[in-house]
């Protein structure tokens, strides 16, 4: 559109350079337009976050009648950090995030590189490939529960190529692999569409030069395509990772965190602590520990976007 080429919109960077332009008059009107949204967001996002912070320094069980929040300083944080289940779910979340995102990046990039043809059929095919991503996550979970059922389609396919059946929801390791597979099925399309756009935006000249010089396919990929795509790949990976570690819906439906705590993730841990055991202080402390990690990652994303944008502009 404006740029003619898909660019990584390093929004903070690009907007600030564009905004060197003069304001188009009427500052009060603009502020008035901004006010409702800002007030709404202060009330619905900033206030709850600060409320969580306050709660995280208190001991409070909702299910004990008459109990009021009691200040315990960092007590809740200590309790959470010492909780074996919290540690397990934090580790699970990290492994889940890294594993799924790595697989999604490799599959998505591979697919994007393989399907660079244009034309009606390919466009329709690409749209079909987006289905998993827009499907209601709870439905995705239910669907895969059926497919991974011990007498379901996946086990049938395994048996038909001579492999043993897998008890996906009984064996802790396979349960973990199972929830990862579902996430990969759901989100590889995301990497695919970002990478397709990024590939389409690559300049053609270096590739024609390489062709003239007789570079092999592997050389072209290794020394041209991959380095040029690396910034986008990094941003995509970070964005995906931040989403992956929030996983809740599919876990809730597929395994409920089980068997045991094999697929317990931070989101499901906080949910259970807060809304099943009504341990408000503990759940809030865990929330802020989780939040701290995500904020660090978010700053990383913004930084990577700015860099990718500069690389793209150069």
């Amino acid at each position, binding site marked *: 559109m404006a740029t003619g080429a898909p660019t990584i919109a390093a929004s903070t960077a690009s907007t600030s350079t564009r905004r060197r332009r003069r304001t188009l008059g009427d500052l009060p009107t*603009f502020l008035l337009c*901004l006010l409702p*949204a800002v007030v709404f967001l202060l009330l619905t996002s900033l206030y709850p976050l600060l409320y969580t912070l306050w709660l995280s320094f208190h001991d409070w069980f909702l299910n004990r009648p008459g109990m009021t929040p009691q200040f315990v300083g960092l007590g809740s944080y200590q309790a959470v950090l010492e909780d074996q289940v919290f540690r397990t779910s934090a580790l699970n979340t990290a492994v889940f995030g890294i594993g799924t995102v790595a697989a999604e990046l490799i599959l998505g990039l591979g697919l994007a590189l393989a399907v660079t043809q244009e034309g009606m059929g390919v466009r329709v095919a690409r749209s079909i490939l987006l289905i998993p991503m827009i499907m209601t996550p709870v439905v995705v979970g239910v669907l895969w529960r059926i497919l991974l059922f011990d007498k379901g389609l996946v086990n049938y396919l395994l048996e038909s190529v001579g492999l043993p059946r897998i008890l996906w929801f009984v064996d802790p390791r396979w349960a973990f692999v199972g929830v990862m597979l579902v996430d990969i099925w759901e989100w590889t399309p*995301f990497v695919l569409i*970002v990478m397709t756009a990024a590939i389409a935006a690559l300049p053609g000249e270096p590739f*024609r030069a390489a062709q003239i010089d007789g570079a092999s396919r592997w050389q072209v990929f290794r020394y041209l395509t991959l380095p040029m795509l690396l910034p986008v790949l990094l941003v995509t990976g970070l964005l995906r990772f931040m989403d992956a570690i*929030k996983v*809740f819906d599919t876990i809730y439906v597929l395994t409920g965190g089980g068997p045991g705590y094999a697929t317990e993730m931070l989101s499901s841990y906080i949910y259970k602590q807060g*809304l099943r055991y009504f341990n408000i202080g503990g759940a809030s402390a865990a*929330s802020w520990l989780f939040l701290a990690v995500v904020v660090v990652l978010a700053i990383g994303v913004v930084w990577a976007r700015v860099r990718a944008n500069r690389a793209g502009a150069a």
Partner: protein
Amino acid sequence: MATSIATPTTGPTRPAPTRRRKSRGRWSGLVWAALRWAILAVALAVVLVPFLWLVSTSFKHEVDYLAYPPRLLVDNWTLDGYRVLFSRNNLGHFFMNSVVVTLASTVLAVGLGSLAAYSLARARLPFRLNGILAFWMLLTRMYPAIATAIPYFLIIRDLKLLDTRWALIVTYTAFNLPFVVWLMIGFFEELPAELERAAMMDGCSAWQRFTRIVLPLSGPALVATAILSAILAWNEFLFAVMLTRIQAKTLPVVMAGFITDKGMLWDQMTALGVITVLPVLVFAIAVQRYLVRGLTLGAVKE
């Protein structure tokens, strides 16, 4: 977008790392082409088979959906799954919950969000507010929703709004607002500022420019943004399961309830799945052009 090799100067072209190369001979070219189509075919199968499985299971009898070996197509189709689902579960009510919550939160988010986005796109605010607000919106979009789950539950409980549609409308508006602002900033910045500058010379106020010039020009973008945030609201589960019990349940919550209550009623479960997913697919097709941009949070402009 220019993709033709003949006009290399008009714009970026697709890289042609595997385009026909005479030195390598036709065979290698053919093998690569075959490989590409094979990869595409496998990918399509991996996506489509599970999806079709969902649809076909919803039309199967119990004998068929529990049969081993499992089969995608059977001889006897039935509508029993849908019939029982509707007759026993008060589904119309829950469907309406989903519709009302989605519509109301979308209208609110797009209304408030596009106003704010216009200001952020066109005004130069004091105290570097543009950058600060933009970054704040991004953070709001990225932080894990679960981190606000506990206070949301407490606040909604104290307001006596648990298990009401209002609880979800407010929540979803809050989630979709930053999303709308982000998308709309991008769209508004693409509009030529000259038009508005000219209007300003003619004495149009910012409000007049917004309603008479900007809004009419960004109709498609607004619709696309609205549909994308509607999809997000429609699919939401965490807050729906947390803030509703019986009356205000949305379709995903009903769906999850099936797992715990009625383990093996696959025909009804998948029928509900089809009903839940169908509107999303229809809308997604309608905004296909903007889908990529919306789903990647403006990470890619097309």
